[in-house]
């Protein structure tokens, strides 16, 4: 009690954050009950009739379920595989730059794409890859080849999305790693230098272990969101020809939830995604603790 009184202002400062979480994150979670109901807009959530697992049965029996699940997982895996290490590599490289002016200018330029909206970015990608006026195809045709309709080839879709996401987010993603690197004791580098460690050795034996906890936490969080691929970028760039590789849970939910007005079904899809994410994050956390001794909890 004395401890509480002594630190009362710290606890007072916690109240707005906790209220925010309670009101905007926890209370709405009761709404997931509509996944098990046939929602009536007049009867409201509690008054609507229960339908049990009917919405989930419909989802699992859908002809597109496997395809949507596969696309969502594959896109996420590629995003993690290519997108996750990208800011780490960039942060490691930026950390080695000794010219502060160059470092700051580079960082600023690298952050900029983060502030471009996906609507604008999708327009840039479409123009860039256009078979008629796109720069990429102008290069291809200048070598005597036929232009490639990149955005109409299912095989290119995931590469385009992942590349665009990396380009957009890599600079911003470095912030957290650069911050983690500033916490590493500089004397470790000095000692290593005296012992004759090369720059690469210092990165390998000091910097990477120094940010390992951050890397693992972010990796675990990414794994938890494995079925979240981001709606906008896919929706803006996909079309019926690329549904085969592009249709993901977000776009599927958009069509059935908003366009077809099946809110209960859309919620069931969302709940399924959340459950998969929850199981994955638990598993990954357990695996991380077993392998490296580091985990979120």
């Amino acid at each position, binding site marked *: 009690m004395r401890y509480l009184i002594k630190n009362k202002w710290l606890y007072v400062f916690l109240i707005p954050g906790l209220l925010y979480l309670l009101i905007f994150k926890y209370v709405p979670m009761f*709404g997931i009950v509509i996944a098990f109901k046939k929602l009536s807009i*007049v009867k409201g959530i509690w008054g609507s009739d229960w339908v049990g697992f009917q919405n989930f049965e419909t989802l699992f029996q859908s002809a597109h379920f496997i395809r949507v699940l596969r696309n969502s997982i594959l896109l996420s895996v590629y995003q993690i595989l290519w997108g996750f290490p990208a800011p780490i590599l960039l942060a490691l490289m930026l950390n080695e730059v000794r010219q502060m002016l160059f470092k700051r200018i580079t960082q600023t330029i690298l952050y900029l794409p983060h502030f471009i909206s996906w609507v604008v970015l999708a327009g840039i990608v479409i123009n860039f890859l256009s078979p008629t006026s796109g720069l990429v195809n102008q290069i291809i045709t200048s070598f005597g080849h036929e232009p490639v309709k990149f955005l109409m080839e299912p095989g290119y879709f995931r590469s385009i999305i992942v590349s665009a996401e990396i380009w957009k987010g890599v600079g911003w993603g470095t912030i957290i790693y650069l911050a983690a690197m500033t916490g590493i004791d500089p004397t470790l580098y000095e000692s290593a230098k005296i012992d004759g460690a090369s720059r690469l050795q210092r990165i390998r034996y000091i910097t990477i272990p120094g940010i390992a906890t951050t890397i693992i936490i972010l990796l675990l969080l990414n794994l938890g969101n494995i079925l979240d691929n981001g709606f*906008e970028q896919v929706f803006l760039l996909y079309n019926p020809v690329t549904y085969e590789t592009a249709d993901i849970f977000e776009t599927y939910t958009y069509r059935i939830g908003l366009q077809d007005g099946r809110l209960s079904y859309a919620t069931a899809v969302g709940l399924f995604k959340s459950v998969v994410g929850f199981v994955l994050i638990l598993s990954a956390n357990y695996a991380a603790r077993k392998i490296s001794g580091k985990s979120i909890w």
Partner: protein
Amino acid sequence: MKRSFRGMIGLGMTTALLALAACSGSSSGGDAPKTSPDGSAGPKEKVTIKIMANFSSADIAPADKAIFDKLEKALNVELKWIVPPSSGYKEQLQLSLVSGDYADLVMFPSETDESFLNAVDEGVVIPVNKYLDQLPNIKKYTYDVSWEALETKRDGKIYGVPRTSVARNDGFIIREDWLKNIGFQMPANREVTIEQFTDIMRKFTFNDPDKNGKNDTFGFAGYLNTTKMIDPILSSQFGNLGWQKTNGGEYAYMTPMYDKNSTVYKDVLAYTQMAFKEKLVDPDSAVIDRNASIDRFQRGMTGIRYEFAGNAPGAEKKGKELNPNTEISYIFIKDKQGQLKGVSYGTAIFGVWGVTNNAKHPDRALQVLDWLLSDEGFDMVKYGVEGVEYNKENGQRKYIDGVSAPWRKSIVRRANDGDFFIDAKLDEATRNKVKPWVDRSIETVAFSLDQGYIPPAAKEPKFMDFKLIWDETITKIMIGELPVSDFDKLLAQWYEKGGKEYVKQMNDYIASTQK
């Protein structure tokens, strides 16, 4: 942004919005019509009418307010507008419906939109039949087919007032300067055959119509529509007039699209495929949206675009900003029999005004729409308020620079008034040039008999699931990735996945509407 959008479409937003519905209730339905003792539509008691509308601008402009001031004075009402951002209107509408906090008069996107159908089913939207006799202007200026379409539950009750959209058989805007460059002799009525149209597309693609010495133009500008589909280039010209009476056979009514014994829809697909294969169509068409397609047309990359005739002067103005030589005109394409006829698939409804069970004075709310359709009100809706938006000089309206009224034309329209859609700010000569095209598009329209009806079979999960396969296959056929013959297999599958029931239910519905 990524996170916020995720929240919007996924579990988070849906549940967040719907949590509000937990305690939602509904007030009872509307009361009886209230008029003044003498029976005229001018009650003494001042009432507030809450209206939720979808306008391009969220804030009321002074020029719009001028109209509403006159309306409020005439009807002794106070209008309270709820105008969410246009891009999020549908979500806001869902939110207000599930929370029970909705306006007296609500604009629904269409008579077939889920939000409207649910609102009717749940009694949120009330029938308007008993008020119609007091609404002479609404009755006079609405298509019969629109009223029929709003008998949503087929119980003789009309659930809303249509925001009328003039039913039209639109043609194409075309680069007139390119036509001159390729030496095409245009008939005086600007109606050409399918063969002539194809010839124009070919010459626009291969004969350097802009005379810049480069092979950098395409005949036709396509785009992905709001359902992410490209539309066929020509359709009614091959006889695809939607649901019509058959001359015997298994069904009394049929659309060529679902007719196993007709080649019409395959002809439609084959034509578009031919144009894609011959590269007469902008190859980016299956990737870009309408705005990007318009932009490419303005930049002189494409020469023909499907468009409402009233937009031709605007397209020319924009085009001239980039290239002073730009001249835009209009053409219609005749069908295989040499007739000009096109189908209106909808019911001339561009949104529905629903009166909700929250409305304490439904009659007064509807009078707002009726007044705007009266001669006095509609003149202002169409042209603006004199002294605020324009001044009269020598009997001609001279519009004041910088004054805009983005709301006034998004509330009501009169049936068959194509003139409404021609920009009032255009000079008289231009308006007179465009008007015959608009009139021609109105007089050559035919209605599909389905009236936008969606049979219950369309809500079956396996039917809805199959839509994706349908969209994918049709698009691939149109762009030439699959042969047209694949349509037969697709149609057979469609019948298996619920199409048979769909056609049967649609036939029952159409039969019920035929007097």
